[in-house]
């Protein structure tokens, strides 16, 4: 259940932004969660709703964008989204790929009041 640790890092980031912009609270938190980031989106949502109560995000909506795994092929140059966990270029079958998205979690956007 590291979703709780992740939410506490997320709320700490929100608090920093609120401080820096001299805002009063956060009304919307938008995150991007990679399918291969290792977090379960549903659990993250539950953790956020539990933790936000005692924080600057008390009244914030939580918006998650689920990011599929996106790779660039180093052999043919094409970019594709992989739907299975088969790391192979759908265009040319090369396994020489560079992951460009879908393995991380980002705070993307905040709405402050």
């Amino acid at each position, binding site marked *: *259940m590291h979703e709780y640790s992740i939410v506490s890092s997320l709320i700490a980031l929100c608090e920093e932004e609120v401080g820096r912009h001299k805002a009063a609270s956060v009304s919307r938190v938008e995150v991007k969660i990679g399918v291969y980031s290792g977090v379960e989106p549903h659990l993250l949502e539950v953790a956020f709703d539990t933790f936000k109560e005692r924080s600057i995000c008390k009244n914030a909506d939580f918006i998650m964008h689920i990011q599929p795994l996106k790779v660039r092929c180093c052999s043919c140059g094409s970019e594709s989204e992989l739907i299975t966990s088969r790391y192979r270029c759908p265009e040319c079958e090369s396994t020489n790929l560079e992951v460009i998205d879908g393995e991380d979690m980002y705070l993307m956007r905040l709405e402050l009041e």
Partner: protein
Amino acid sequence: MCKDCGCSVTEEHHHHQAHETLHHNPQLNDSKTIDVITKILHKNDHEAAHNREHLDKNHVLGINLMSSPGSGKTSLLEAMAELADFSFGVIEGDLETNKDAERLKAKGIEAYQIQTGSACHLDAFMVHKGLHHMDLNEIDICFVENVGNLVCPASYDVGMHLNIVLVSIPEGEDKIAKYPVMFRKADLILFTKTDLLPYFEYDIEAEKKTARTLKPNVDILEVNTKDPQSIKKVIDWIAFKQRFRN
């Protein structure tokens, strides 16, 4: 340890100001939307990079060991203590007891137990504290024995150079397919307790194939703690990687 590397300096300055743009909302002029675009774990990642600096300065290779509970992480370290030419220390993530650290100390290995209660993974800050207790001048390799868990530790860079992920035969087939995020992180996958293969329905070649579908360039070895040759191969792999850390 950190006096000379300046880690007590706050890292606020390094915040991602550059990415930021303001959109004033004309209807609600008391509300504004800001683009942040920061990794949620960026503080952890920053600390992880800092841990690697400590290791690099001392020419120490850092290796993070991850697996389910009981796959044989501590047993592997004990077996290596008797056979390896390199010297090593271990930061132990067995959070509830100090049994694993005691087992290693009994073999003459420097081991430091991280005490943080019942966390399900180690993060770079915990490992940094552990590094303060390691004499990095005296060792060639620093291992982190992560908390036994195939999910949570995969999300946290703890600041080592390489990841070894263990999977033991009695855990059964399909572990690699079920935990792709963890096995994608592996530089080396160890199939452990291979002495038990005759007693389990376990198609090890099929499991290796799954691993290479997930991560085509991953290294794979088989380990049985009663077979010194198998431990030697792990030692050779580590020693090979260590040669590039000087």
